């Protein structure tokens, strides 16, 4: 079934890796049982900062999921042959990322047993309703596409013709998931940090930088671990995409800064003050945000000159920097920064607690486990053909 048998044969190292992931998942599961018992009070969240690590990881991972379009679009729309070997890797990355998104939303619910109320009482006026639909649809699309192309590849035949329209549909759909996720935040009166029309474009730019950066790192790891060949060219093409997307992302952030600080409207400036300088002596996020900013600029210094970009070692470092920079920016600063100060001017800081971090780590481990298994299957199919 689904070529799953390919995932249960592997080297000793493979099994050690799998067991480690399960250990992390188990620890997080125990922490979640405690959260279920006691309530979300065991997290670092508060009446002023009501969303934190869970929702920001969700937001970041929607971007990773959407970024699959950056390999699917050139390959299927422009017949860009270099991406033949990485397209399926991008789709599997998307499936894993969307699953993580769903799990992060789920663990953030105060009443998880009632979560189906979203479908039982559909409310088209809520962006969360649309987000659920678009994420669910995207998961289905990618699951169908990835599994069908993999089966076709195994049999050495071309994918069935009915798949093409589904693949084409997945392209605008990928854009939609991250646009709707930006709309979750960008339409709230009284949350000035998020009330910006550039939120969706900025989300997409950061997604198309962080997702392909992760894909490059994964391709490099695959090259090391399995002696797969032919990944060098797509990696270089992906590097160009990362470079442009990262430039756009930095440009968009600078536009936000200009609007806030030239207009001098206090509620627009305060959030940036809090993130980069601290407010009322509260500075928990300041070192993180400066790390993110410095990493962003440094990664661009390495990515823009073709000479450094073409060096695999430098490229790997630059991709790590892009990923980390955007993880801090979106997976930490963007959500928490929107809550500080509160609409009533309260400056309450947020830091995740140990159980909260364990739960988040477990969801990451589930995602990494899925990526491991999917890539193992995809590569095993390829090896058996070679």
């Amino acid at each position, binding site marked *: 079934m689904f070529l799953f048998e390919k995932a249960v044969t592997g080297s000793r190292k493979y099994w050690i890796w799998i067991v480690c992931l399960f250990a992390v998942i188990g620890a997080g599961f125990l922490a979640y049982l405690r959260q279920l018992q006691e309530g979300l009070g065991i997290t670092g969240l508060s009446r002023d900062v*009501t969303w934190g690590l869970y929702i920001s990881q969700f937001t970041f991972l929607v971007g990773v999921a959407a970024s699959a379009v950056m390999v699917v679009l050139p390959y299927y729309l422009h017949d860009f042959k270099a991406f033949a070997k990485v397209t399926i890797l991008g789709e599997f990355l998307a499936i894993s990322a969307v699953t993580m998104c769903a799990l992060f939303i789920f663990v*953030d*619910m105060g*009443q998880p047993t*009632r979560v189906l*109320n979203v479908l039982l009482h559909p409310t088209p006026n809520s962006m969360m309703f649309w987000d659920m639909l678009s994420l669910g649809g995207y998961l289905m699309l990618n699951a169908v596409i990835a599994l069908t192309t993999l089966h076709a590849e195994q049999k050495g035949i071309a994918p069935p013709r009915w798949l093409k329209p589904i693949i084409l549909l997945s392209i605008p759909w990928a854009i939609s998931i991250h646009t709707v996720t930006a709309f979750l935040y960008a339409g709230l009166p009284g*949350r000035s940090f998020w009330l910006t029309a550039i939120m969706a474009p900025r989300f997409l730019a950061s997604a198309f930088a962080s997702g392909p950066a992760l894909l490059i790192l994964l391709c490099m790891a695959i090259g090391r671990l399995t002696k797969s060949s032919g990944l060098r060219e797509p990696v270089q093409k992906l590097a160009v995409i990362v470079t442009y997307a990262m430039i756009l992302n930095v440009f968009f952030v600078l536009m936000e800064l200009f609007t806030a600080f030239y207009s001098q409207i206090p509620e627009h400036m305060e959030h940036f003050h809090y993130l980069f300088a601290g407010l009322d002596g509260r500075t928990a996020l300041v070192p993180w945000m400066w790390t993110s900013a410095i990493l962003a600029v440094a990664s661009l210094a390495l990515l823009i000159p073709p000479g450094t970009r073409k060096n695999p070692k430098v490229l790997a470092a630059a991709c790590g920097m892009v990923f980390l920079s955007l993880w801090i920016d979106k997976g930490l600063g963007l959500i928490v920064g929107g809550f500080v100060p509160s609409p009533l*001017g309260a400056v309450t800081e947020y830091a995740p607690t140990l159980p909260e971090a364990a739960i988040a780590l477990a969801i990451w481990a589930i995602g990494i486990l899925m990526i491991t298994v999917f890539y193992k299957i995809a590569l095993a199919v390829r090896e058996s053909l070679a």
Partner: protein
Amino acid sequence: MILDRKSFLRLTGLSVLARKLVAAVTPKRWAMVVDARKCLQKEGCQKCIEACHRMHNVPAFAEPRHEVRWIWKEPFERAFPSQENLYSQAAFRDKPFPVFCNHCDNPPCVRVCPTGATWKRDDGIVMMDWHRCIGCRYCVAACPYGSRSFNWLDPRPRLTQMNAEFPTRTKGVVEKCTFCEERLARGEAPACVEACPEKAMVFGNLADPASEVRQLLGARYTVRRKPELGTRPEVYYIV
């Protein structure tokens, strides 16, 4: 007589319909006017807060970050940030103003709720259904007034006494002021209005030109909290 499920549903459906008809003939729009001068007369007065929180089983959490509140006092500058003025009257500077849910005519919390657990009734009250809330806290993020509280932990152990006529809440749901809709249904005024020794809070029907709230709004200068956001708050302050 044995009632089957169908006739039972018909029976209850009829009473719902009857109530909607009555509402259509006699329009209602509940609103509140707070006379800040009267409210500020007695320093440190907490009567409205105590009455409300006791009546509605609002728990007292020791940690501020888990605090649940339906009505509380906020310094003037925080309650009305757009009215800020370096040399504003000493009478108002830093003075505590009672704040609670504004029962907005265009409530952003209702717009964002993914389950319809919070909605605006025909009489303008922004209601909560604690049976349906999934605890996503989107409404908390959407409310520009900080009027909504989430139950981070089980509220019951934090209640010293319980009013059996009103439910407590459970962990994981959002709660807020409901303009005492359960008292309005019995023809009584909200608990805070009744408890105020200075009679600083006036509650009534905006749709009725003869109502006290309409008279006050017509005669006195009033402000609302953050009207520039287009939420159309229905709590007015005489300053």
